[in-house]
C-alpha cells in the first residue's frame, strides 16, 4: 500500500513526537517507581509530586499525539481528498511541543508553591490530578483541539455522506474540545471541583477517547484486513452507543465518596457494571474481523498492538474496572494501589497501544518500507506487554496489602507500617518498570529508524524470517491452529472468571471475619489467585491469538483495491 494523499505524511511528525514524549514519560515513571521504594531519591530536586505531574501530563500528551497522528493518516482516506489547511496542522505540531516544554517548567513550580494566581485562576499550574497544567497551557490545549476539530471536520465530506466512522471521529474530535472546557474553571468547593474534574477525566476517557479508539480500530481493521466497511460501521455505531449508554451515568462511580450524595452509589455501581459491555463487544468485533477472512498478517507489529489495545482494554478497563466499580468494593479499593493497576492497563493498554499500532501501520508506508524487519517490533510488544501486566500485578497485590494494613488494621502511614508491609510489591515496580522501559526503547528505536536501516537483501532471507511472515516450523496445529470462536469465548470466560475472583476478593473485606477479627486469609487468597491468574491468562491468550495468525499461509498480498476504502453513504 502506498500513500494516496500527500497530507497523510503530516502524521509522521506526530508519531515521532509521540515516541519522544512516550520515552520521557517512561523515564518519569522509573523515577516514581524508584521513589516508591526509597522516597529520599531525588527528594528536593524532583519531588514525587512533580515527577508524577509530568508522568500524567506526558501520558495525556503522547496519547493525544498518537491520536492526532492516526487521525491525520486516515482522515484523507475517509474524505477521499487532501487535508485542508496543512499549515494549521504544522502549527498544531509546534503548539504541542510548546505545551510540553511549557509544562516541563511550570509543573515544577509546585515545589515552591507557585500556582500563578491571577483573577482567581491558577495560570501556571493547578495541582489537580490529571489536570495539573495551569490555565495558560489549558487555553493553549483548547486552541489545539479547536484546530484539530476544524481541520478534520473541514476535510470530511458533507455530513450527508458520512458513514459511522466519519461520525465517530467527527464527534470524537468535537467532544474532545467540548469536554475540556469543564476543566478550565477554578472551583472553590472540593466536592464540586472533583465533580467537574471527573467530568473531564472520565468523559474524556470513557466518552471521547473510547469513541476515537473504536473508530480508529474499526478503520485500521478495514485497512489491514479489507473488512467490509458496512459491517465495521455497524460495530462502530453500537460500540459507541454502548459506551455512552453505560458510561454516561457510569461516571457516577467517581461520585461515591467525594462529598456528593449517597444516591450516586447505586446508579454509579449499576451503570458502571455495564461499562465492560462495549469492550466485550469490541473484543468480538476484532476477533471476527481478524479471523473470518484467512488473510496472512502483513504488518505483524501493527496488528500485535491493535490486539494488545483491545485485550488490555478488556482486562484493564473492563475486568479490573468492573471489580472495583461497586460501592461495596470501591470503598476498599478507592485511594489505594489497587486503582493504578487498573489505570496503567486501561490508559497505556487501550490508548497508548493504539497510537503505537497506528504508527506501526503508517510509518512503513510513509517511509516506503513495506517489507521492514518486524522482529524488533514484536520483541518490543512482548516486553511492554509483560512490563505493563507486571506493573498491574505489583500495584494490585501491593494495593491488597495496603487495604488490609491501612483500612482494616487502621495503621496509618505515620507509624511507617503501610509502606513497610507493601515493601516486596514496591520492589516489583522498578523491576517491571525496567522491562517496560526496554520494550519502549526498542519500539522507539525501531520506529525512528524504520526504513532507514540497512536492509537485509531478500535473497539472504529465503524463509522470510526477517519479515515475520514465517514462524519457523509454521504449523497450523497445536498452539498455532486457527482460533475458533468457541475457543476465544472460553479464553474470554476464563478472564472473567478470574475477574470474578478478584471482585469477590475485594468484596470479602466486608466480612466480619476480615473486618473485625482482622483475618486477611480470604482476601489475600482470592487476590493471590485472581490477579496472577488474570494476567497470565491474558498473556497466554495474546500469545495464542497471535500464534494462530502467524501460522496462516503466506499468500501473496493482494493490492488494496481503492474502492474498498470508499466510504459508503449510510443512507442514499
Amino acid at each position, binding site marked *: 500500500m502506498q500513500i494516496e494523499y500527500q497530507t497523510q505524511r503530516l502524521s509522521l511528525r506526530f508519531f515521532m513526537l509521540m515516541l519522544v514524549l512516550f520515552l520521557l514519560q517512561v523515564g518519569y515513571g522509573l523515577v516514581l517507581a524508584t521513589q516508591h521504594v526509597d522516597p529520599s531519591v531525588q527528594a528536593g530536586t524532583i519531588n514525587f509530586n512533580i515527577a508524577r505531574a509530568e508522568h500524567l501530563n506526558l501520558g495525556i500528551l503522547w496519547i493525544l499525539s498518537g491520536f492526532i497522528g492516526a487521525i491525520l493518516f486516515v482522515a484523507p482516506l475517509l474524505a477521499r481528498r487532501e487535508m485542508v489547511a496543512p499549515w494549521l496542522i504544522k502549527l498544531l505540531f509546534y503548539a504541542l511541543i510548546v505545551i510540553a516544554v511549557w509544562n516541563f517548567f511550570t509543573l515544577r513550580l509546585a515545589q515552591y508553591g507557585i500556582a500563578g494566581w491571577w483573577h482567581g485562576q491558577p495560570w501556571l499550574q493547578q495541582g489537580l490530578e490529571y489536570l495539573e497544567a495551569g490555565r495558560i497551557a489549558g487555553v493553549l490545549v483548547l486552541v489545539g483541539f479547536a484546530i484539530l476539530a476544524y481541520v478534520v471536520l473541514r476535510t470530511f465530506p458533507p455530513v450527508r455522506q458520512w458513514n459511522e466512522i466519519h461520525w465517530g471521529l467527527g464527534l470524537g474530535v468535537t467532544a474532545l474540545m467540548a469536554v475540556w472546557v469543564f476543566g478550565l474553571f477554578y472551583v472553590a468547593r472540593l466536592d464540586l471541583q472533583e465533580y467537574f474534574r471527573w467530568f473531564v477525566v472520565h468523559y474524556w476517557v470513557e466518552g471521547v477517547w473510547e469513541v476515537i479508539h473504536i473508530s480508529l480500530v474499526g478503520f485500521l481493521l478495514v485497512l489491514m484486513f479489507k473488512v467490509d466497511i458496512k459491517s465495521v460501521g455497524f460495530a462502530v455505531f453500537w460500540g459507541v452507543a454502548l459506551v455512552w449508554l453505560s458510561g454516561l451515568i457510569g461516571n457516577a462511580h467517581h461520585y461515591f465518596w467525594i462529598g456528593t450524595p449517597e444516591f450516586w452509589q447505586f446508579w454509579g455501581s449499576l451503570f458502571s457494571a455495564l461499562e465492560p459491555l462495549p469492550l466485550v463487544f469490541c473484543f468480538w468485533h476484532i476477533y471476527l474481523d481478524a479471523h473470518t477472512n484467512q488473510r496472512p498478517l502483513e504488518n505483524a507489529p501493527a496488528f500485535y498492538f491493535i490486539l494488545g489495545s483491545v485485550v488490555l482494554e478488556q482486562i484493564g478497563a473492563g475486568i479490573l474496572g468492573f471489580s472495583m466499580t461497586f460501592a461495596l468494593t470501591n470503598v476498599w479499593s478507592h485511594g489505594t494501589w489497587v486503582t493504578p493497576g487498573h489505570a496503567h492497563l486501561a490508559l497505556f493498554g487501550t490508548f497508548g497501544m493504539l497510537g503505537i499500532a497506528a504508527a506501526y501501520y503508517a510509518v512503513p508506508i510513509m517511509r516506503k518500507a513495506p517489507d521492514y524487519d518486524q522482529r524488533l517490533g514484536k520483541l518490543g510488544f512482548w516486553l511492554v506487554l509483560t512490563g505493563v501486566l507486571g506493573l498491574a500485578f505489583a500495584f494490585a497485590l501491593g494495593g491488597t496489602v495496603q487495604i488490609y494494613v491501612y483500612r482494616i488494621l487502621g495503621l496509618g502511614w505515620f*507509624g511507617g507500617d503501610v509502606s513497610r508491609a507493601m515493601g516486596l510489591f514496591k520492589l516489583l515496580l522498578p523491576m517491571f518498570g525496567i522491562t517496560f522501559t526496554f520494550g519502549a526503547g526498542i519500539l522507539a528505536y525501531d520506529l525512528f529508524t524504520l526504513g532507514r536501516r540497512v536492509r537485509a537483501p531478500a535473497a539472504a532471507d529465503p524463509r522470510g524470517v526477517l519479515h515475520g511472515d514465517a514462524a519457523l516450523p509454521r504449523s497450523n496445529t497445536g498452539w498455532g491452529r486457527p482460533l475458533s470462536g468457541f475457543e476465544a469465548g472460553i479464553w474470554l470466560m476464563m478472564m472473567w472468571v478470574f475477574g470474578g475472583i478478584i471482585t469477590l476478593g475485594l468484596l470479602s473485606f466486608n466480612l466480619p471475619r476480615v473486618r473485625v477479627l482482622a483475618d486477611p486469609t480470604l482476601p489475600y487468597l482470592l487476590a493471590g489467585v485472581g490477579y496472577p491468574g488474570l494476567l497470565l491468562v491474558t498473556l497466554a491468550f495474546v500469545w495464542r491469538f497471535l500464534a494462530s495468525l502467524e501460522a496462516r499461509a503466506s499468500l501473496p498480498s493482494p493490492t488494496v483495491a481503492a474502492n474498498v476504502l470508499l466510504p459508503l453513504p449510510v443512507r442514499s
Partner: protein
Amino acid sequence: MSCGVGGSSCETPRRRGAFVMLGIMTLAFVVLSLFSFMKSRGQVTPDTVSYGPYKAEDGKRVFQAYNCMGCHTMVGNGAYLGPDLTREYAQAGPAWLAAFLPSAGSWPTAAAVRAQLQDPVQHADTGAATIEAYDGKFPEAADRVGRRGGKPSNMPNLPLSKDEIGQLIAYLKYTSAMNTEGWPPRVEAEAGLDERVRLALGVQAIAPAAAAPAIPPVAAAADPAARGAQLVKDNGCTACHATTGQRLVGPGWGGLYGSRVSLADGSSVMADDAYLVESIRQPNAKIVAGYPASVMPSYDTLLKNDEVDAIVAYLHSLEKQ
C-alpha cells in the same frame, strides 16, 4: 433483510431508540447533579469554615499550589505515596499539623507539639491548653509522636509560610467536616496496636519505640553542652536547624556563635549569648535575612533558664563545617 446496515428496516428504529435512551439518561444525570449541590443536601462548604483568621477557601489554593494531590489522596483521589488527608485535621488536630508542616522532613516531637499549644488560634479552636488535654482530644497525635517523634519522614521540607500553614489547617478542617458518605471505612478491627502491627509486619516492632517517650533525661546534667544536645534532640529543634551551616527550614547552627548575622530589616547583629537566648525565647524579635517570620514558635515558657543556657552552651560547641 439484514439488520445492521444503516437504513435497513429494523436497524433504524433500534438506533433511534438508543438516541432516545441516551437523551433520557443525560436528563436524569443533570437532574441528579443539580440535587447533589443544593443547599438542602447539607454539605459543608469551604466559605463557612475557618481556623482563626485563616479561611478554608485560601487553604484550598495553597493545597493546589503545592500540588499536595501529587503525593497524597484527598477524598481518596490523588497519588498513593503518602496518606489520605481527608480526615487529617480530625485525627491529628491543628497543633500537630502546625508542628509538622513547617519542617515536614521529620516527625514532630512531643515538645514541638507542646510549643504549638501556646498558639492562641489553636487554643481557641480546640480548647486544649495542655498536652494531656490535646492528646485526649486527638489520640492519634499522641500515637504518632510516641512512635515516630523526631525521626525523619518521607516528605520533603516545603517552603510554607506561617499564613499558608494556617490556611492549610483551615482547609483540612473543612475536608474533615465533609460528609463523604461512609469513606474512608471505619476501622472495626478489635486487636490492640501491638497485635495489629504484628499482623501487618509479622514482627513485634512497636514495643521499644513506645517505651521511650520523650522525657528529658537528667543524667547528662554535668556537662551543659551535652545536656544542651539532648534538649535539642528532645525538642525536635533539628527538624528545622542543621548542626552544620546548612539551611534547612531555619538557619544552620554550625559556626553561628560569634558570627555576624544580617537581619531582614537590613541591620546586622553579633550572634552572642544574648542574641541566641532571645532567638529561642522570642524568635520573631530578630528575623535573619532571607527567612520568613513567625515560622518558629516561641519557647519562652517551655524551657527553663538553665535549659536555655545549656542549649546555648551546645551552640557554642558547633563549629562551621
